[in-house]
């Protein structure tokens, strides 16, 4: 390697012509930084959603009226349990509590004595002192909720205005740890009874049912059974949710990617111009090389390798920079575009989630456009008549 004179010359021509390459290097660095940051964000969100989805119940059964999800009667529970293959049925209580049009909390009521449907919750419940928690009207709040309440001077408690028009005061028992990511940012967790009051459910109503069906090949059968058993029941499987979320964030990433394609198109125009209108110095240099015995093939090889070096350098710099930008500095500005500025979920930290498929995607699109744009101009430079320049 070190004894290869061609590579020696390649390194020379690359490092003695810093001016020639620096412009393109800077432009491509920023384009790549932007693209890889957005894709890093999207994959990080997708990754933490996927992780929390693993803890979701296999089936969720909703009561549908007029196309909207409606509260279900807790009497369904007995019938559901009788279906073969269904292990556990849990009536869940949750819903959005709106403070105004924009801001809302997700209120979740749980049964602190039984196993939770969500393993995140399970771990959480195990950590708190139940006796103390249940002795008063307490709640656990997510980080964003805590922040919001603090800023509105609710230091220790909050008065919920229930749909019946009564006030219900709950004490802030503890802030939820931030580690559970996106989903726990805006939640309020309390007992089922209190949650029903806040959300305006009567005592024999639940939001929906969560079912555990361990055998994956039974799921389709059971789904059909349930739908024929209850008129108006909608069964949502874990896979359904998984698919929906995946395509939602793919879609967001996709929109950015299309924007990026437009940018890269502009970039390739710049590149094209830069190579077609090669400087007279560059032309003279190539003519000189041709005159001392370099073939067209050698010149093309030199120029292609120059480009590849540039591609590798700018790519690796950009990937490292965007990793730091997204996972260490939490992507200021970009996060607001991606998550929407008004949401309470803005408090989250992006979890480092390195997706090699994603990095190769960025690399491929960059490599292919770069090479495709410069290929023909490079050939033109390489075949240009040395005689004309050397006069």
């Amino acid at each position: 390697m070190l004894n290869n004179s061609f590579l020696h010359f390649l390194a020379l021509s690359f490092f003695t012509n810093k001016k020639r390459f620096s412009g393109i290097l800077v432009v491509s660095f920023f384009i790549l930084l932007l693209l890889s940051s957005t894709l890093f964000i999207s994959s990080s969100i997708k990754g933490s959603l996927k992780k929390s989805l693993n803890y979701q119940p296999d089936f969720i059964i909703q009561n549908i009226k007029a196309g909207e999800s409606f509260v279900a009667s807790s009497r369904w529970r007995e019938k559901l349990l009788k279906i073969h293959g269904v292990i556990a049925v849990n009536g869940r209580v949750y819903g959005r509590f709106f403070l105004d049009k924009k801001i809302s909390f997700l209120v979740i009521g749980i049964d602190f004595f039984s196993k939770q449907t969500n393993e995140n919750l399970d771990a959480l419940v195990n950590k708190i002192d139940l006796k103390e928690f249940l002795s008063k009207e307490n709640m656990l709040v997510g980080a964003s909720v805590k922040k919001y309440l603090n800023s509105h001077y609710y230091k220790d408690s909050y008065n919920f205005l229930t749909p019946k028009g009564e006030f219900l005061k709950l004490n802030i028992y503890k802030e939820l740890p931030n580690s559970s990511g996106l989903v726990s940012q805006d939640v309020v967790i309390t007992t089922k009874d209190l949650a029903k009051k806040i959300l305006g459910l009567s005592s024999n109503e639940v939001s929906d049912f969560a079912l555990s069906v361990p055998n994956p090949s039974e799921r389709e059968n059971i789904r059909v059974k349930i739908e024929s058993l209850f008129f108006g029941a909608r069964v949502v499987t874990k896979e359904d949710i998984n698919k929906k979320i995946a395509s939602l964030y793919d879609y967001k990433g996709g929109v950015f990617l299309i924007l990026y394609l437009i940018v890269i198109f502009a970039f390739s125009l710049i590149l094209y111009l830069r190579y077609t209108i090669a400087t007279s110095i560059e032309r003279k240099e190539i003519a000189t090389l041709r005159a001392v015995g370099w073939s067209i093939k050698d010149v093309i090889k030199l120029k292609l390798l120059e480009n590849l070096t540039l591609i590798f350098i700018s790519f690796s710099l950009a990937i490292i920079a965007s990793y730091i930008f997204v996972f260490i500095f939490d992507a200021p500005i970009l996060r607001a575009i991606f998550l929407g500025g008004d949401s309470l979920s803005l408090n989250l930290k992006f979890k480092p989630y390195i997706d090699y498929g994603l990095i190769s995607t960025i690399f491929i699109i960059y490599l292919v456009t770069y090479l495709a744009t410069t290929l023909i101009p490079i050939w033109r430079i390489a075949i240009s008549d040395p005689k004309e320049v050397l006069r």
Partner: protein
Amino acid sequence: MGDLLLNSYEIVYLSSEVITTIFAAILFTLSLKLLFGWDINRSTKEQYYLEKVAYLASTLALFLFWVKTILYIYLVYTLDELSIYIAGAMCAAGVVSANSYGLWLLGIKAISLFLLLLWMVLNSYDLEQKNYPIFKKKIVLLIFISLFILLEGWLNYSYIVNIDTSLPVSCCSTLFGNLEGENPLPFNLNTISLIILFFLLFIAFELSLLIDSKLTTLVVTPLFLVLSYYSVVYFFGTYIYEVPTHNCPFCMMQKEYNYVGYILWGTLFFGTSFAIIWASVALWLKQEYRVLKKLALILIAIFVALNSSYFMLYYIKNGVLL
């Protein structure tokens, strides 16, 4: 189409393929020009210009070869990623079988890569001679290759547009498995004779290269390629998955199996391609490209060693065979 087209991987794959298709079209017109305009005995400006155009053509071929190789790997990876959207698919196998274009696409892609490789070798031979002895022949091949790549462009589009996410597909165990008791192996072989034949052919392959018997190489290599496919899917694969009934050429390219499938199929493809190109060029043009031979020897040795190591490691760890 709809929802599938907005997946990042696909956008990147398809737009890159659009670029390669455009370049294939350029290559096609250039080759036609070269075929009809070329006359080595003339000393006109046009002839001198065509000589330079030939360099553009070979640069384009080089570009297409590398980009197509990278995109092939990327396509398989994308198909694996897509398998979560398609009901019934557990790996790329299901996605490939989502419509009738999938398998054709993979096949044509492999063939055009092989032809591009062959062309690059022929081109470098031609350029090394003083009178372009096989110029027209290589250009005809180039026309053929560019048409192939154009066809591939159409297949890419037809394949991806016609993936219906709502239509359930079969997973790999139904596509490749032998659950119905039918013997999936060719020539009525059973597993033991398959493996014995596999190793015999491997030895014949390496020997034919070592003793420079080109004709033997040309006969043995295709047989070895076919048997290797079956041996990996129906024997070695089960040791990679450590499940006796798991027969799939695609799952081994997933993360769970350390992407080993890419190395296996890659070494097999390039090893056999180099061997065939070495032997046929040596027979036809009397020019030996020793690099090709060496690469073929090494790649196929890696392929066989890797397969055997899965088998042996399993035996050492568990003391039994599957």
